[in-house]
């Protein structure tokens, strides 16, 4: 195929996103394009605006300025359920399972409500079948009646992933899926993310404030600091960037000492 025919599809495009809380700028002038099939890492110290950016993309927060486009359509200010229906799913940094529902029922919600209008109507049975499929996919081992409060920290993060996947997204916003996990669990969770991209063909934006595991998996990294993009590029380039080291690794070292 001649190169001119290879089209790169821009899946998500952020243009000049700003978000102010009172006088405080949580995000200022964020512009970013994410290609279909990309595995993008978004890093930055605590409070740098990573989760705020996710909230803006997923519709939980309305940006004070700027535009969010998904698959060419303007989705700025749409309700979260609408954005979910379009194919954007997210996990929460602090897991938010519905505690009165079983783990399976939690994931079923995603299957029942997540993709209305895009694929076939889900009956309870197919939703349950799908839920179990995604629970297996993320490597969560639960019984039919397991409640969320019986899960470990790693289990809760897997539940977040399974519930998000059940909405059959084309773009996954993964918010700190490995923070608080031990080394073994980190490897497992990272490989799940990798499989979500490779086997399911889901584009992923992965937010993490620890650099380690993320840097070895993603293709491109965007670094946020004080609500601004301070660096962008291949992991190897970014980790050597002076500004990143100052803003980011500098703080990490301070934390160590």
């Amino acid at each position, binding site marked *: 195929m001649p190169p001119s025919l290879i089209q790169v599809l821009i899946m998500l495009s952020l243009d000049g996103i700003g978000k102010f809380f009172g006088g405080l700028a949580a995000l200022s002038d964020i512009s970013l394009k994410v290609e279909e099939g990309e595995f993008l890492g978004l890093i930055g110290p605590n409070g740098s605006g990573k989760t705020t950016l996710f909230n803006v993309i997923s519709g939980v927060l309305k940006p004070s300025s700027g535009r969010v486009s998904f698959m060419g359509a303007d989705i700025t200010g749409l309700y979260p359920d609408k954005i979910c*229906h379009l194919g954007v799913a997210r996990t*929460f940094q602090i897991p938010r399972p519905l505690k009165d529902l079983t783990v399976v029922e939690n994931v079923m*919600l*995603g299957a029942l*409500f997540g993709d209305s209008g895009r694929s076939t109507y889900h009956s309870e049975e197919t939703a349950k079948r799908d839920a179990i499929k995604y629970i297996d996919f993320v490597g969560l081992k639960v019984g039919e009646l397991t409640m969320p409060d019986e899960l470990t920290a790693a289990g809760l993060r897997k539940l977040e992933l399974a519930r998000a996947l059940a909405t059959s997204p084309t773009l996954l916003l993964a918010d700190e899926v490995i923070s608080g996990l031990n080394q073994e669990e980190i490897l497992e969770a990272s490989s799940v993310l990798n499989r979500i991209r490779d086997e399911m063909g889901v584009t992923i934006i992965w937010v993490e404030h620890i650099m380690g595991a993320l840097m070895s998996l993603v293709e491109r990294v965007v670094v946020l600091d004080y609500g601004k993009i301070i660096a962008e590029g291949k992991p190897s380039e970014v980790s050597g960037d002076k500004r990143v080291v100052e803003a980011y690794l500098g703080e990490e070292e301070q934390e160590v000492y």
Partner: protein
Amino acid sequence: MRSPLNIKRGPILLTVILGCLILFPVFSPSPYLIHIITLIFIWSYVSTAWSYMGRFGLVSLGHGAFLGTGAYITALLFNFFNLSPWIGMLIGASGAVFLAAVLGYACFRSGIIGDYFALVTLAVGELVALSIIAMREITGGSLGFTLRSLGNSPLYFQFGSKVYFYYISLLFLLFALYLWKRIDKSKMQKALKAIGEDEVAASSVGINIIRHKMAIFIISAFLTGIGGVLYAQYITYLNPHTLSGVTVSLAIPFKAILGGMFNIWGPAIGTAMIVSLEEYIRVSYGTKFVGVSEVVYGIALITLIIFLPKGLYGTVLEIFHKRQRSAETIT
């Protein structure tokens, strides 16, 4: 939560209770007893309709607004235009639905939830009562008005005997319970449960928050509007304080919370207890303690919410299930 009524003996027990209720008037007991049980049916129906939304965290303290709207529209259409309440009640209940739709959309759109939603509804309930009083010319103000009597006229929802009302209100109650079951089997129930627990998480998996809340609010308001008509036709007298003031707006949730709003039988059991207790106090102490029931309401409500959030019946069920579960693990 499973109710013991659902396990094996459930259908039999239910049939027996229903059979007793149906046969009860046949043994011509005192009209007074028929009257009390009819009141229990009507208010059980209303508090069940209230719990449709209450159990998902949508606590309304203004259901009197819907009760009053339904009852007054229907009764005025009858008194002034001779429209049969059987048809009028649909218009009255539609009025309640309209009110709920406007109120619900305004609240849900701007994210008014929890205690704030309760406060807004409380105000709206009182607003409707005050509007009724203000329209003195046609509503008779706070003195209320009486339905034109036609004697025994089933086509106009008027009967010569209380027994008819007994059966009609029992039917309405059964319908409300049936609808509860239907809601429980629907996708809407799952959406509302998720919304009640965590709106952000619910909307992130694609649940339309506003639409689902509007739907249950409208269903609840419609049934409550009909409930107002039922009560007004039975008593044949409409008064803003008994149909839409703060007192009645608080009495409805209290009945539901007392019995336990999370279980299908809770609101009815709570209502039976309250109506019986009120009658007992009224009969034994007469007018000596006017207003005492409101004081008892207030104290009991606070105590309940703090110590028995699942209500009396709900708590009994929980203890029952714990016993059963521990018995199962032992054997």
